[in-house]
């Protein structure tokens, strides 16, 4: 009485084995090495390194700027994705391809370009600095660099999901009397919310680890615009590999906790949605009509 389920495609065992080996080699092995190295330090020492005044400030800058960048992208990325999916316009394919550029550009190039643009005599800097807004060499510059780097994550996760929502659903909601806002808030948003969270989480995670672009625009002043990866490099400059791994492990743990939280939130949102009614019913409810 084997309860083996029948699958259409063969090779599950092989594929699973391959997946495990692949993930182990690529992710678990380096991370394991990192944690093993850090374990040469005691827990107390690691905490000590992480809670130093400079490190604390750097953690605040790194996580704060990453969070802001991911939030900005969640909002504007949603708009971009919506426009790219829903509206035909000339040059759409070109614009669509532009979205991927931050992936392809070497991050150092991005950082140098942004610093040049936003410096006091740059194309953008010369207009905004007289208004008292300084971007290059301030924490705001870090946010700008991270927003640039992480833009594709939100757009690319949202696009397929928005494509899946048929316009008929909106029309149904409208014909049942839902206002535009109700249609968006009660029908469309719940459907894309899980994907939006995924995009946010990806962008956030990518931003935390970013080094190449940030150092060229941050200014790197202690307590003000130092990011954690810079402190790690600084420790490596001193041949202090242990200290560097300690910081890396703390960063990893914090990122893991935050990503886990986002994933739980996403799971909750997706499930709530699943247990809910199908879209058409939601459309009806949004309008207050009885089905």
């Amino acid at each position: 009485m084997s309860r083996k389920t029948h699958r259409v495609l063969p090779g599950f065992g092989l594929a699973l084995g391959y997946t495990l080996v692949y993930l182990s080699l690529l992710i678990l092995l380096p991370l394991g090495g990192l944690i093993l190295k850090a374990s040469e330090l005691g827990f107390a020492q690691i905490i000590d390194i992480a809670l130093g005044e400079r490190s604390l400030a750097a953690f605040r800058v790194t996580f704060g700027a990453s969070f802001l960048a991911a939030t900005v992208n969640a909002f504007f990325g949603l708009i971009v994705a919506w426009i790219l999916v829903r509206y035909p316009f000339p040059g759409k394919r070109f614009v669509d391809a532009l979205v991927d550029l931050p992936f392809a550009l070497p991050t150092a190039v991005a950082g140098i370009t942004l610093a040049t643009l936003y410096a006091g005599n740059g194309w953008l800097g010369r207009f905004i600095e007289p208004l008292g807004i300084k971007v290059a060499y301030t924490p705001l510059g870090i946010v700008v660099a991270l927003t640039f780097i992480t833009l594709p994550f939100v757009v690319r996760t949202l696009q397929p999901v928005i494509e899946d929502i048929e316009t008929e659903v909106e029309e149904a909601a409208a014909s049942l009397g839902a206002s535009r806002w109700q249609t968006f808030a009660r029908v469309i948003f719940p459907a894309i919310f899980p994907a939006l969270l995924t995009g946010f989480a990806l962008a956030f995670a990518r931003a935390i680890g970013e080094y190449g672009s940030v150092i060229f625009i941050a200014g790197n002043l202690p307590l003000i615009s130092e990011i954690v990866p810079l402190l790690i490099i600084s420790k490596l400059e001193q041949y202090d590999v242990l200290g560097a791994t300690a910081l890396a492990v703390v960063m990893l743990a914090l990122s893991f906790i935050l990503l886990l939280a986002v994933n739980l939130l996403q799971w909750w949102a997706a499930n709530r949605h699943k247990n809910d009614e199908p879209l058409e019913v939601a459309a009806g409810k949004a309008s207050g009509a009885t089905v």
Partner: protein
Amino acid sequence: MKNFSAYVSVLLLGMFAGSALADVTLLNASYDVARDVYKDFNPLFQKHWKAKTGENIEIKQSHGGSTKQVRAVADGLEADVVTMNQANDIEFLADKGLVTKDWTKKFPNNASPYTSAMVFIVRKGNPKGIKDWNDLAAPGTQIIIPHPKNTGNGRNTYLSAWAWALRQPGGNDAKAQEFLGKLLKNAPLFAAGGRDATTTFMQRRMGDVLITFESEAEMIAKEFGKGEFEVVYPSLTMQTEFPVALVEKVVDKKGTRTQATAYLEYLWSKEGQENAAQNYLRPRDAEILKKYSSFFPPVKTFTVDDVFGGANKAFATHFKDGGSFDQIYQSK
């Protein structure tokens, strides 16, 4: 990134170019901006070696940040020789047993074939009248320097200012640290590296003064034009050394000790010294220094050994975590 592309180019060179022709191949692991110096020097040595021994020698170059390069060598990059811009990087290899402990004695002049000095680059006409280190700490002056803790260039600047403050009447460590505190307050940013600082100062037009190597001034002239800036020599500044060493473990394994030693010794030859001078690095050879005296105005310098008791000690006191630089940034 640069490091990586250097490896790749070294690999590609090895695969497609020389190996078939060369009797011996040497790898020189070097710091970033040394490209020009060794690009010109290597053919000189190849010619010299061919004439002397009849042997075809090929020299590959690997360039990157000094500390990164040294770590690569420690991790197994098979460089026969290391030519660096900081003594403490070679000390690290000595600690690892790859380089002999008394490497500074193996070649003349503290094993540094040429030197440079930290100088000020100011805007044309020197509008702020910057002459010496105390002018950099004056209120309202902005200085552009690379990160003093993470870059060799920045560390040299920091130590130069410190040494100057020490040598002032009544100068001591506490006063020097206070002076550095004031000076660093005038830095609106710490650039990622030497070239980034140059771009920030010259192209983005930030700051009143850039502190960098004398040899960089000529690079700036080539890139941005001579009329754009002036070089100011402070009353005292650091003589920066560019130490070289044989990687004992590698040359023994590859059997290249003779050639590698000759390669480094050739840096002190007339040709080697002249090549350094042409790249705006101060040659050790007095005669050649005189010949190129228009490049190298007299300047009063100190060495890290004189004032700080060696590169390692200077690093430990000032740039390790909790050192004098970090103390400046502890909140009061």
